[in-house]
């Protein structure tokens, strides 16, 4: 079962990364695309809780840091998505999440993730971007992530829910 879980998580992350890098740029707004990898981490947090989502967020972040065409200092997305997994897992309600709860979690996570990434860039001076530009990108990212939620989250939550039958049984 553990290997199945690992396989499921790998497939979900790979698909999300490729979608984000090669498909969505065709529909980008000012270069901002839906952060599908972040949505996968949030979905995992809603279904499986903070611990799993945190580890998944770390792995997803490292992938996002290393896969082409990334060129920022590695570890920045890892830190951002790790925090997203942790926070989303902690605030997620017990039991089956309702639609408003899911949307609120996504919006908060998207804001948190992009902000942490941007702030780490300010601290490491990699590259130095003006604050208004940061805010514009963060706002754009939240909107895109909310728009992509109905398409991505049901799939992700279905996948991670199915990979953990014991939890489904307790419902």
């Amino acid at each position, binding site marked *: 079962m553990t290997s199945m879980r690992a396989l499921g998580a790998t497939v979900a992350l*790979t698909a999300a*990364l*490729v979608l984000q*890098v*090669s*498909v*969505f*740029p*065709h529909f*980008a*707004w*000012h*270069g*901002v*695309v839906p*952060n599908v990898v972040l949505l996968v981490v949030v979905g995992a947090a809603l279904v499986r*809780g*903070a*611990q799993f989502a*945190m*580890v998944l967020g*770390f792995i997803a*972040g*490292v*992938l*996002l*840091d*290393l*896969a*082409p*065409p*990334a*060129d*920022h*200092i*590695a*570890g*920045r*997305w*890892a*830190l951002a998505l*790790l925090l997203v997994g*942790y926070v989303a*897992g*902690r605030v*997620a309600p*017990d*039991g089956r999440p309702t639609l408003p709860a899911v949307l609120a979690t996504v919006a908060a996570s998207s804001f948190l993730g*992009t902000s942490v*990434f941007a702030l780490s*860039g300010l601290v*490491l001076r990699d*590259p130095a*971007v003006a604050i208004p*530009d*940061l805010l514009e*990108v963060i706002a*754009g*990212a939240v909107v895109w992530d909310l728009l992509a939620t109905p398409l991505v989250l049901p799939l992700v939550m279905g996948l991670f829910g199915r990979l953990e039958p014991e939890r489904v049984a*307790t419902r």
Partner: protein
Amino acid sequence: MTPRKTPPPALVVALVLACASLMTLDAGTGGGSAVEPARRMVGEVFGPIEAGTSAVVRPIAEIPDWFRGHDSMRDEIDDLEAENAGLREQVRTSGFDRNRLAEYDGLTAAANDLGYALVPARVIGLGASQSFSATVTIDAGSAAGLHPDMTVLNNDGLVGRILRVTRTTATVLLIVDADSTVGGRVGDTMDLGFLTGQGETGADGGLDLRLVDQSVVPDRDATIVTWGSENDAPYVAGVPIGRVTEVYSDLRDSSQRAEIEPFVDFAALDLVGVVVPSGSESDRAVIEADGSLER
């Protein structure tokens, strides 16, 4: 109902420390980063996947174009666009060329400037703005004869330079990235300067130009071309970059800053060429300087 699993503090600390050490490793000493081999490995795996996905998605993304015209019309448009781009480039560089002649650049320099070939490649991945860096992946790598610090351009002008390569892909730093600096010169007056990206890939992304001679005010609409680097790495000379749209004067230290609108549309980047030495070994057809195709 099982209580939500709260992660053990030890795990939280361990993962945060892992992130911190990754950043330290990568940001650490100048030159080659310790993370580079890992980047290359991940690139080798994801490169082909990105290339495959791009090949599938490109026709779908181009569906709106199909409604605009018939196949023959599309061909005609392509031909006209190519011709137009060629003419535009001639106009843009005419001042530069005239000056070069006037300065008697000589046959050596001309041969050096023109003796290069282009490896064609397509963009298969774009970095999101959320990462605040303007980079793209192209579908040609070390197998096509590419290596870091090569010039990338398209038929509109300068695109960027290659940062790193895997076997089948290469990562390109666009000139609009905030970390990118290009040596440029004003085509009409030959004044030298440095162009820095503003960090925006969208339609309104631009560059800042600071001239070495701070008393010179560049003309509006003046064309900026590359100045060229030693051994043509990372930038070859004479590639058009953009035109001056706005000039700001700083009264305090009497310096000028000009805003440059790049000729390349970075929001719709697709087919690019990588400048390689003429006669390079490659896994695909190479466009030689005289327009012929070398296999």
